[in-house]
């Protein structure tokens, strides 16, 4: 028998165990998958060539449901962190791992792996299913076409990083409703409002906001007037890093 001691790998295993043993994980992941697939099929089945959606990027069109599904995954991110404060589980968690910060890294890691994997697989399935309906239209495309696979992976990565921001907000605010409010207000709505302001600099700044960057990553054809995919990915990584760094610092200082 090995000697009991805390190691990063063991904390990771503990967080993985926690993630898979509550219903909310399965409910949010399956909801997001159902939304992505359902909206994708709807888009494919109702599409007519030359209609209003003809100029829409094929990947954006088929994965339109990821905008809704992403919200379910963001809620999961918030439950992973802020949820522990709601139930009191955080006291047991931080008594077991009193160095605290490894818990946050472990949570972020198991969330990232779970959400990226399921999002990517669902996105691939959704794209292929939608294409069955789109075969004879001007939106017909295959996985091997230029930019398609990258955009599908970009969509999954974007949704995952957006969810990590939510996870970080949950850890910083320690309240499920508070973090959901902050996510919807600050991450989803605020850039829309800033974009309508009559200052040109705002247009440039808003390009690098999380939701805009996610849009860039999920497009097969580069969008005019948007950031480049590389810049968007970097911006999103920085947002997620900042959203995790703040609670990591606070976790060390605050009383539980």
């Amino acid at each position, binding site marked *: 028998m090995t000697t009991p001691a805390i190691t990063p790998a063991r904390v990771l295993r*503990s967080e993985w165990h926690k993630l898979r*043993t509550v219903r909310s994980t399965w409910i949010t992941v399956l909801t997001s998958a159902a939304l992505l697939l359902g909206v994708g099929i709807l888009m494919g089945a109702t599409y007519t060539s030359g209609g209003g959606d003809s100029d829409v990027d094929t990947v954006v069109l088929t994965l339109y449901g990821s905008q809704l599904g992403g919200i379910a995954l963001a809620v999961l991110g918030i439950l992973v962190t802020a949820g522990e404060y709601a139930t009191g589980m955080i006291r047991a968690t931080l008594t077991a791992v009193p160095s605290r910060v490894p818990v946050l890294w472990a949570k972020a890691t198991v969330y990232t792996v779970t959400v990226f994997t399921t999002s990517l697989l669902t996105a691939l399935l959704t794209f292929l299913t939608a294409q069955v309906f789109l075969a004879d239209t001007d939106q017909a495309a295959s996985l091997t076409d230029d930019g398609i696979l990258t955009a599908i992976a970009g969509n999954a990565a974007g949704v995952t990083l957006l969810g990590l921001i939510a996870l970080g907000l949950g850890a910083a605010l320690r309240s499920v409703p508070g973090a959901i409010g902050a996510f919807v207000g600050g991450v989803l709505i605020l850039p829309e409002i800033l974009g309508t302001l009559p200052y040109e600099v705002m247009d440039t700044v808003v390009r690098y906001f999380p939701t805009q960057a996610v849009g860039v990553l999920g497009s097969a054809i580069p969008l005019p007037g948007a950031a480049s995919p590389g810049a968007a990915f970097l911006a999103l990584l920085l947002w997620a890093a900042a959203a995790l760094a703040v609670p990591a610092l606070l976790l060390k200082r605050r009383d539980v």
Partner: protein
Amino acid sequence: MIRAENLTKRYGDTTVVQDLSFTVHPGSVTGFLGPNGAGKSTTLRMILGLDAPTRGHATVDGRPYAAHRAPLTHVGALLEARSVHPGRSAHHHLMALAHTHGIPRARVERVLALTGLTHVAHQRVKGFSLGMGQRLGIAAALLGDPATVVLDEPVNGLDPEGVLWIRTLLKNLAAEGRTVLVSSHLMSEMALTADRLIVIGKGRLLADTTVDELVRASGGTSVKVVTPEADRLRALLPDARITAEGPDTLLVAGLEAPEIGRAAAAHAVPLHELTPQAPSLEQAFMDLTRDSVEYQGASA
């Protein structure tokens, strides 16, 4: 072994714990007593590294709790508030905690059996009664087979059977050589389980003593005597400390009932009642903490 040195915790202008120093030794049950709001839970949270002291520090086995490589093997704790996800089963809750230390599944099953939870181990905690919830908290505390066990108000809200189970458990843990620190606001409960007592009020140390010493300090035993000739009896017992409880009733301290009875018989003083009184630890505790109770009830 737990050692607190000058522990102080302030929230803004409010001082919850003030300059608290004490040591808790292995092999006995130490009661941590104080009225509600005395700072017991805050002190325990500082020992466990959940709250940072404003000043001073606490160590467990010579180090701060958080500095241990396997803290669950040093201290197991049951905190007052529930610390469990209600949607997870008891088994999975304990497994998640066990994984952090690489504690094997067999140990999880062992503590489930020890706390009598084996048959409900795979049910979600949501449906647990208060007593089962406490048992799960204790199972979690014992998970790392810790040398020190800290329990915050473990009998609160339990039925008599649950209370008895906790008492036996505490005594057994101490008999195994562990350090046991158990907080309570009920002196009567501590009198039954604890050997040593640390009494605090308004965040300050009021007494660090044993139950026996506290009994002695509270005046020891006394005898209630009812006699129509109270004044004569008083004169016959010059060495006793006597207080009058009524025209015919005396409370005699410093003498045992047989001695009082013999003295009365020798001088033909009729006695209607001669009753040894149990020492009132409750009273001693209240005397000790009178000035530090948060809310004083006014007598009508």
